[in-house]
C-alpha cells in the first residue's frame, strides 16, 4: 500500500460529494482548534454528520464516592458546549430500511476494530452505532464508510433521520408489495435536500408493507407509510403523520388513505416545507412535527400540505426511480430446495432454534433467518463471519431490525441446518428470537448522556435470569415482549411492549435510588397500535421480581387466549398499582445497600453524571409528602381515563401538576395558598423565571407543560388529549422531584 492516509488511499472509491463533505468536516476541526468556530455551531455540524456525544464527555465522572475530573490531554479544547474534545463519542451509521451488504458489514467491522471497541451495536431504529470513538478518527472512518457508499450524514441533528422499514419487505406473507425501493428512493431524494435543512427538530420516517404486523411501527413515527394497492391495481401508501414516542407519546394521524407512488416524493417534500415553515423553532421541546399536527389539527395540516404541493417546482426525481423498481428488489442466490434431512442428522439444538428464529417466506421453499443479538451487540469478528455466510447462502442482503437483531432472507430450506451450524460456529445462533428472551434496551447510562438508570444493565440481568429458565416457561409467557429505556425519552420503545420500563430515580434519606417506571399493556402488533400507560415506579433491583409477579399472575388469571395487554386492561390500573405496591418499598441503606446501586454497576448510584449535582443534604420532607399527593392525583386521573371520563381525567392531571408545583413552592414559601392561579404565578416567578427548575437538558420544558394547561384548558378534551395531559403531569411531577433533589443537594467532590 503506497498511500499514507485514507484520503489518498480511497481516492476514486468515494462518491465525490461525500468525499468533499468529509474534507470540509475535517477542515472545520482546524478552525475549531483555532477558536474560529463557535461551540454550538461545531456541535451541530458534528451531529449532522453522525458524531454524537457520549456520557462523561463533559470531562467528569462520578466514581461512586465523588465526582472526579477526567483530565484529558486536550485541556480546554471542546467540540461543543461543555463537551471535551478528547472525550470518546458515539458514531451513528445510517442504514436505510436496515439494508446492508457483506462489503458494508466488513467495512463497519474494520471501523469498529480500529476506531471503537470492536462492537457493532444495532439500534432500535435499524442504525449501527459505534461507541468510544475519538473525534479525530471520525473523518477517516467516514471516508472508509463512504468508500462502500455508507453515510453517517443526517444520522443525528435536526434533519431527516434514518428511514426505517420492515425487515421482511419483499418476502413477507402479509405485505402489499416490497417497500424497500421506495424507502431507498425517499432516503436518496431527501439526503441533503434543501427543504429538509431547516427543521426545528429531527424527523423520523418509517415504511411498512402492511397494516397488521409490527415490523414498521409506522404509528409511532413522524411520518409513516403503509403499502397499499388500490382498486385499479395502482401502488401507493396510506400516509400517517405526527406520531412519536419520547416524553409525550403520540399516535400518528392519517394524512391520506392512499397516496399514489408517483406522489410519494413530492408529498414528503411538501410536508417538509410546511414543517420547516410552521414548526416550532425556538422551543425545541415542542418542535417535533407531532406538536404541529396537534396544534393545527390533521385537517388543516392536510390542507396546508396539499396547497404546498401545488406550488412545488417539478422535479424529475419524483418519478425517475419508479422506472427502476424491479419486481423483486432482492432475489435468491440459490434455488429453493426442500429440506430432507433425517431427524438424527439434524444438528443439536436445531429444532429449538428453528422454532423461534425462522420465518417461512411468501416464496415457496425460502426462509428468513433471524440472528438474535444479545442487547443488539455483535463483534467485528462475528461481522466478518456473517459476511461469509451471507455471500455463501443468500448473496447480498442482510438487514437490521428495530428489535436490534439481524435477518438473512432468501435462505433455501435445504441450507437451514448448514447455516445454523455456521452461525453456531461464530456465536450467532442464539435462539429465542421474538420471544421474551429477545429484550430490547436503549444504551441508557452505559453511554447515553441523558440516561438515568441502567437499561442495558437491567436487560443483561433479565436475560441471564430468563435464559436459565427459558425451557420451562409456558408458551404465553415466552411470547411477551419486554423493552426498556434509560429515561423518559423512550429510545428503547418501551411504550409498545407488553412490559416496558423507563428509568428514573427517587431520593430515600440521603441517598438516591435507581428506579424504573413500569409501563404495561403497550401493543407491538398493528405497527405499534397502542401505547402502554405508566403504572408506578419500582426500584431497579425489584424489577426481576415484578416481572415474575406479573407473568405468574397473567398465567394464572388470564381468560382463554387473552393477550397480556387485554389482561392488564381488564385488571385496570388501580389493581395493577396494588400489585406493584409491595415492590415499591426500598429497604434502608444499612439493611440492603444493593438497592442503592444499579444493575451491572457497583458504584453507589447517582444522577450526578447527568450533570445534576450529587445529594448529601437532608430531604425536605414537606416536599415529599405533598409531591406524593400529586402522584396519587395523577393516578386517579388514569383511572378516570380508563373509565372513559376524559374531561375528569384531564382536570385531575392538571390538578396533580398544580399540587406538585405547590409542593415545590412550599419549600421556599410556607404560606402558599391553594389557589391555582396563585400557585402557578408563584411557581413561575420563583422557579421558572429564576431557572431554578431548569435542568441541563430539558431546560424549562416541563414547566411549560404546566403553563400551557393552566392558560389553555381544553373545552372538551378527547381521549388523546386526556392521555397526553396525564403523561405531561407525570413528567412534571418527575421534574419537581428532580428539582427538589438538586436544590436540597450540596455538591461534593471535585469538579462539579
Amino acid at each position, binding site marked *: 500500500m503506497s498511500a499514507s492516509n485514507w484520503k489518498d488511499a480511497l481516492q476514486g472509491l468515494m462518491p465525490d460529494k461525500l468525499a468533499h463533505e468529509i474534507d470540509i468536516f475535517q477542515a472545520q476541526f482546524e478552525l475549531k482548534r483555532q477558536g474560529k468556530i463557535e461551540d454550538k455551531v461545531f456541535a451541530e455540524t458534528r451531529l449532522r454528520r453522525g458524531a454524537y456525544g457520549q456520557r*462523561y464527555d463533559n470531562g467528569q465522572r462520578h466514581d461512586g464516592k465523588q465526582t472526579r475530573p477526567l483530565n484529558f490531554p486536550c485541556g480546554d479544547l471542546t467540540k461543543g458546549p461543555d463537551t471535551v474534545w478528547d472525550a*470518546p463519542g458515539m458514531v451513528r451509521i445510517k442504514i436505510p430500511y436496515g439494508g446492508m451488504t457483506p462489503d458494508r458489514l466488513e467495512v463497519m467491522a474494520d471501523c469498529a*476494530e*480500529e476506531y471503537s471497541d470492536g462492537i457493532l451495536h444495532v439500534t432500535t431504529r435499524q442504525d449501527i452505532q459505534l461507541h468510544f470513538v475519538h473525534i479525530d478518527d471520525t473523518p477517516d472512518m467516514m471516508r472508509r464508510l463512504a468508500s462502500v457508499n455508507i453515510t453517517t450524514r443526517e444520522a443525528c441533528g435536526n434533519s431527516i433521520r434514518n428511514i426505517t422499514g420492515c425487515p421482511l419487505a419483499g418476502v413477507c406473507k402479509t405485505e402489499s408489495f416490497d417497500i424497500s425501493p421506495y424507502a431507498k428512493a425517499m432516503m436518496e431524494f431527501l439526503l441533503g435536500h434543501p427543504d429538509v435543512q431547516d427543521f426545528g427538530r429531527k424527523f423520523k420516517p418509517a415504511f411498512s408493507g402492511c397494516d397488521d404486523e409490527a415490523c414498521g411501527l409506522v404509528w409511532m413515527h413522524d411520518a409513516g407509510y403503509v403499502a397499499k394497492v388500490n382498486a385499479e391495481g395502482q401502488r401507493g401508501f396510506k400516509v400517517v403523520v405526527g406520531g412519536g414516542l419520547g416524553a409525550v407519546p403520540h399516535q400518528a394521524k392519517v394524512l391520506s388513505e392512499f397516496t399514489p407512488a408517483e406522489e410519494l416524493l413530492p408529498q414528503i417534500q411538501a410536508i417538509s416545507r410546511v414543517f420547516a415553515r410552521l414548526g416550532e423553532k425556538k422551543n425545541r421541546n415542542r418542535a417535533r412535527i407531532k406538536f404541529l399536527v396537534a396544534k393545527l389539527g390533521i385537517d388543516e395540516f392536510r390542507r396546508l400540505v396539499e396547497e404546498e404541493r401545488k406550488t412545488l417546482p417539478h422535479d424529475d426525481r419524483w418519478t425517475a426511480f419508479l422506472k427502476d423498481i424491479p419486481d423483486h428488489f432482492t432475489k435468491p442466490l440459490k434455488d429453493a430446495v426442500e429440506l430432507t434431512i433425517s431427524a438424527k442428522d439434524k444438528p443439536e439444538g436445531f429444532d429449538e432454534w428453528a422454532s423461534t428464529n425462522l420465518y417461512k417466506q411468501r416464496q415457496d421453499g425460502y426462509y428468513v433467518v433471524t440472528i438474535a443479538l*444479545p442487547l443488539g451487540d455483535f463483534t467485528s469478528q462475528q461481522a*466478518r463471519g456473517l459476511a461469509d455466510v451471507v455471500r455463501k447462502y443468500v448473496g447480498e442482503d442482510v438487514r437490521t431490525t428495530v428489535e436490534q437483531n439481524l435477518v438473512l432472507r432468501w435462505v433455501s430450506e435445504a441450507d437451514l441446518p448448514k447455516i445454523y451450524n455456521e452461525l453456531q460456529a461464530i*456465536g450467532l445462533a442464539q435462539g429465542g428470537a421474538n420471544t421474551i428472551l429477545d429484550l430490547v434496551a436503549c444504551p441508557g447510562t*452505559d453511554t447515553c448522556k441523558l440516561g438515568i438508570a441502567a437499561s442495558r444493565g437491567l436487560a443483561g440481568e433479565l436475560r441471564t435470569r430468563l435464559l436459565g429458565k427459558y425451557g420451562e416457561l409456558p408458551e404465553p409467557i415466552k411470547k411477551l415482549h419486554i423493552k426498556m429505556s434509560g429515561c423518559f425519552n423512550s429510545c428503547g420503545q418501551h411504550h409498545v411492549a407488553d412490559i416496558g420500563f423507563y428509568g428514573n430515580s427517587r431520593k430515600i434519606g440521603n441517598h438516591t435510588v435507581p428506579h424504573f417506571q413500569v409501563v404495561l399493556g403497550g401493543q407491538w402488533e398493528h405497527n405499534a397500535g397502542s401505547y402502554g400507560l405508566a403504572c408506578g415506579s419500582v426500584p431497579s433491583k425489584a424489577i426481576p421480581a415484578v416481572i415474575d409477579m406479573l407473568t405468574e399472575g397473567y398465567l394464572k388469571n388470564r381468560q382463554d387466549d387473552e393477550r397480556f395487554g387485554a389482561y392488564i386492561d381488564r385488571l385496570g390500573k388501580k389493581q395493577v398499582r396494588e400489585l406493584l405496591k409491595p415492590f415499591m418499598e426500598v429497604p434502608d441503606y444499612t439493611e440492603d445497600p444493593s438497592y442503592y446501586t444499579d444493575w451491572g454497576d457497583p458504584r453507589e448510584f447517582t444522577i450526578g453524571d447527568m450533570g445534576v449535582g450529587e445529594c448529601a443534604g437532608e430531604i425536605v420532607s414537606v416536599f415529599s409528602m405533598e409531591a406524593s399527593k400529586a402522584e396519587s392525583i395523577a393516578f386517579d386521573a388514569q383511572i378516570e381515563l380508563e373509565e372513559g371520563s376524559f374531561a375528569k381525567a384531564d382536570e385531575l392531571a392538571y390538578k396533580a401538576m398544580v399540587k406538585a408545583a405547590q409542593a415545590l413552592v412550599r419549600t421556599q414559601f410556607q404560606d402558599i395558598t391553594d389557589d391555582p392561579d396563585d400557585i402557578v404565578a408563584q411557581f413561575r416567578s420563583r422557579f421558572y423565571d429564576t431557572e431554578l427548575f431548569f435542568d441541563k437538558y430539558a431546560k424549562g420544558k416541563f414547566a411549560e407543560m404546566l403553563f400551557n394547561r393552566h392558560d389553555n384548558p381544553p373545552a372538551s378534551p378527547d381521549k388523546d388529549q386526556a392521555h397526553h395531559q396525564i403523561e405531561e403531569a407525570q413528567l412534571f411531577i418527575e421534574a419537581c422531584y428532580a428539582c427538589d433533589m438538586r436544590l436540597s443537594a450540596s455538591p461534593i467532590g471535585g469538579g462539579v
Partner: protein
Amino acid sequence: MQRISAKLYVEDSSAVTPTAIIPVFHRWISDGAVEGLLIDVADYKHVPEGPGIMLIGHEGDYSVEYTDGVPAFRYERKRDRPSESELREQIHQVLRLTLIGANTLAENPDPHGPIGFRTDEVVVSIADRLRAPNTAENFESIKHEVEAAVAEIYGAVVETIERISEDARVPLGFRVRIDKAPALKELVGRVQTAAAS
C-alpha cells in the same frame, strides 16, 4: 499505528467470572491502579467470544476478553505516543502495560480467588489496515520487531511465532511462544525496573 494490542491467557478459565471483574475495573479507575487516563467500564459479557469486560481508557483499553473462547487479559494501545517513534518501542510499551495490568489483576484480592496468567504464550495484534494490512510480507517484516520486543522483556528465546490468520480482513496478528518463560511477577519486576531507570 492505529491500534496495537497484546494479550496473555489465564491459566485456569474457571477462575474467572466476568461479573466479578466489573467492580475490580471500577476500583482501578478510582485508585488509578494502572497507567493511563481511565474513563469507564464497558460490559460485553453477553456477547459470545466477545471483548468481555473492558476498562476504557484514553490512551488504551484494558480488558478481560473471550475472543479465543478462553479468558485473556488484553491491553490495546489506541494512540501513538510521539516519543515512541519505533514500532519495536511501541510493541515493547504495549507488552509492558499488558504484563503490569495482568499482574495487577492477578494480585487483586478477588472473592473468587487469585487469577493466574500463562506467560509462555503472547498474542500481539496490529489493527491498522492502512499501514499494516494483514499480508504475508507485513507478517515477515514486522515479525522481527515483535520477536525482538518479546525477547528483550523476557530475556528468553522466542520458540515460535505464527501468523494468527491468513484472512486479509483480520488484523495482522502474531502468536508468540516462549521457551522457559519467566513467571509474570518476574517479568513485571523487569519492566517496572526498566521503566524506572
